[in-house]
Every structure is written in C-alpha cells, then in structure tokens.
C-alpha cells in the first residue's frame, strides 16, 4: 500500500529504496525521447519545492529496450506513468506496454489549463482503455475546477483507479526578482500539497467507487493514515524521498503503530474513516486501558 510518486525515484539507481515499496511507479514515459527543460529545473520554497523537469525520458522505445527489462529484475511490481500531449500519444504508449509484465498504467493526465478538462480527461482515459487490457489509473491535477467531477469522468471512461494528486503550479523569484526556473512557473510539491491532496481524496472518495492512490506531502505515518481516512486505498511518497530515501520503510512502521493505536490491523480498515458521522468508529481515546 506504499508506492513512490512518479519521477521521485529511479529504481535502477536506488534498488534498495525501490524494494521498500509495494510497487514502483516509473518516471513518465512519452512516445518519443525527451531531453527535458533547460536548467534551472528545481527551486526550494518555504513549503516544499518547485520542479520543471519537462518529462525528460528515453521515450517508449528506449524504455522497453533498456529500462523495463532491468526494472523487472528488481522483483517489485512496476507501474508505468504514461504521458503525452494528445490522447493518441497516451494510447500509443499504453498499446506498447500492453504485452509487458507491467501491473498498472498510470496516466499522467494533468491538463487544468485546457478548456474542458473533464472531457479531455475522459478522452485520454478512453483512448488508453482501448489500447490496453491493463488497469489504467488517472493521475489528476488538484488545480482542476472540480476534481471530483474529473474523477467521475475518468471512472465513466473506464479508469480502474485514481492517483491524487499531481503538483500545483508555483513560482519562485531569485535575488534579482527573476524566476528561478527556466520555465518561470513549475510544479509545487511537498508539505504545501498535503491538505490539497487530502481534500481531493476526500472529494473523490465520495464521488466514485474507484481505488485511490493518495499522495502529496506525505512524510510520516500519521500523514499516510490521514490519506487513508480521507479515502485513499494506497499512499505514495514523493518529494520526501529526495531528503529521506528510506522514508517508505519508516512511514510503513509509523503507519502500523498509528493503526495499532486505533485497534486496526491494516490500512484499508482506516479507509474512509473521515467520512463517518455519528457512531464513533474509533476507540474512545479517553478510555482507560483494560488490564
């Protein structure tokens, strides 16, 4: 139930980090190789970091020839993040991955700036579904006007699950009041994103019956627990991995302790607790332990 956020871990460079995970999510793969954006690509801000990597990746040919065979040797389930600029791009990459042992295809659908984002999300999910038998997850932007409506659109188009959330757009200025990043704005991740992710997971849990991978600023077991309570069925760790590559094992242990304190055996029992009204589902905190 603990994954990494796409682009936050290179399992080949850090196999021991990847082995802590229940599944490894790759950096986004596009049809053609991409060198990525000009530097500067990252900036530190008070509440996290900005990035503007520009989907640097070897392209689907390079991924299938060089990367995937070595990833499969790690013996960790592999999810591939799929990207593109048109629905056909997504379909092409999904088609090429259909006959590989990959577990899940996660569509990096983050189009808050198009005119009809929900329809566009549905179009991409539907194109991917027609290209592959594999489960397709839609990774949504928290900047969507109504993320739950986009989730419903994705579900109706055949998505098997949701990944919530991608980054928000942010800007950082240097001493000369110029943008630090070469692209000016970039994706904001880290602690700032955590309440945003919780809100998105909470809204989408109510709106759909899909499994949800929650991510955004998770750095402790309590953070993971909150995402489960809001409605996640798995959590992913992103920016935290940069500072603490062994965070997944630590967070797993902390989560287990959090669950034990609530009298729960496994994370899924905490799923949706934030939605319960009336009857207290949690043990009474004030109750003196029986002995």
């Amino acid at each position, binding site marked *: 139930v603990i994954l990494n956020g796409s682009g936050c871990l290179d399992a080949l*460079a850090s196999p021991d980090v990847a082995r802590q995970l229940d599944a490894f999510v790759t950096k986004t793969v596009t049809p053609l190789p991409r060198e990525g954006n000009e530097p500067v*690509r990252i900036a530190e801000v008070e509440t996290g970091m900005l*990035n503007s990597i520009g989907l640097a990746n070897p392209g689907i040919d390079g991924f299938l020839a060089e990367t995937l065979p070595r990833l499969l040797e790690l013996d960790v389930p592999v999810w591939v993040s799929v990207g593109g600029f048109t629905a056909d791009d997504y379909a092409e990459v999904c088609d090429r991955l259909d006959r590989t042992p990959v577990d899940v295809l996660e569509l990096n659908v983050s189009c808050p700036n198009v005119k009809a984002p929900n329809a566009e999300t549905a179009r991409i999910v539907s194109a991917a579904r027609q290209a592959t038998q594999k489960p397709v997850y839609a990774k949504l932007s928290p900047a969507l006007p109504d993320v739950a409506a986009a989730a419903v659109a994705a579900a109706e188009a055949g998505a098997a699950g949701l990944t919530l959330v991608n980054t928000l757009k942010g800007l950082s200025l240097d001493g000369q009041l110029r943008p630090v990043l070469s692209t000016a704005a970039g994706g904001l991740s880290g602690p700032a994103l955590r309440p945003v992710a919780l809100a998105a997971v909470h809204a989408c849990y109510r709106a759909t019956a899909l499994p949800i991978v929650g991510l955004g600023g998770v750095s402790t077991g309590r953070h993971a627990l909150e995402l489960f309570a809001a409605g996640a069925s798995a959590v992913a760790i992103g920016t935290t991995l940069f500072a603490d590559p062994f965070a997944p094992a630590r967070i797993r242990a902390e989560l287990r302790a959090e669950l034990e304190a609530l009298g729960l055996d496994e994370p899924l029992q905490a799923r949706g607790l934030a939605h319960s009204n009336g009857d207290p589902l949690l043990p009474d905190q004030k109750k003196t332990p029986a002995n």
Partner: protein
Amino acid sequence: MLAAVAALAPGAQLAWEARMACGFGACYGCAVEIEGRLKRLCVEGPVLPGHVRVQTPDMARRDVAA
C-alpha cells in the same frame, strides 16, 4: 572560474555545482549541459575532467551580463 581553471590546467578535475533535489539520479533536477547534452550532474559528475565541456545556467547568465 572553473572554465578558467580548465583553460590553464586541462588535466584538472573540476567539481561542478547545480541545484540538486535528490543527489542520487532520481529527480533529473540537476541536469546541466555536458558535452552539449542535458545530463544529470549528480550521476555524470559532479567532478569531471577539465576537458569536458560543461555549461551551467549560472555561467550562461554571466555571459549575458558581460
């Protein structure tokens, strides 16, 4: 300065710098131009032989100012 050192001492080993989020090849944040291609400085370097051509954003900005 590193470019000047390389000109004076082609055999020198130069330690380059770029903003790094992870420092172990995961994030692609520290990519700079190495021999004309954008590559991750943390895994390709950060120490490179003096004859390797490196272009960092800081150098580019100084060129514009000059």
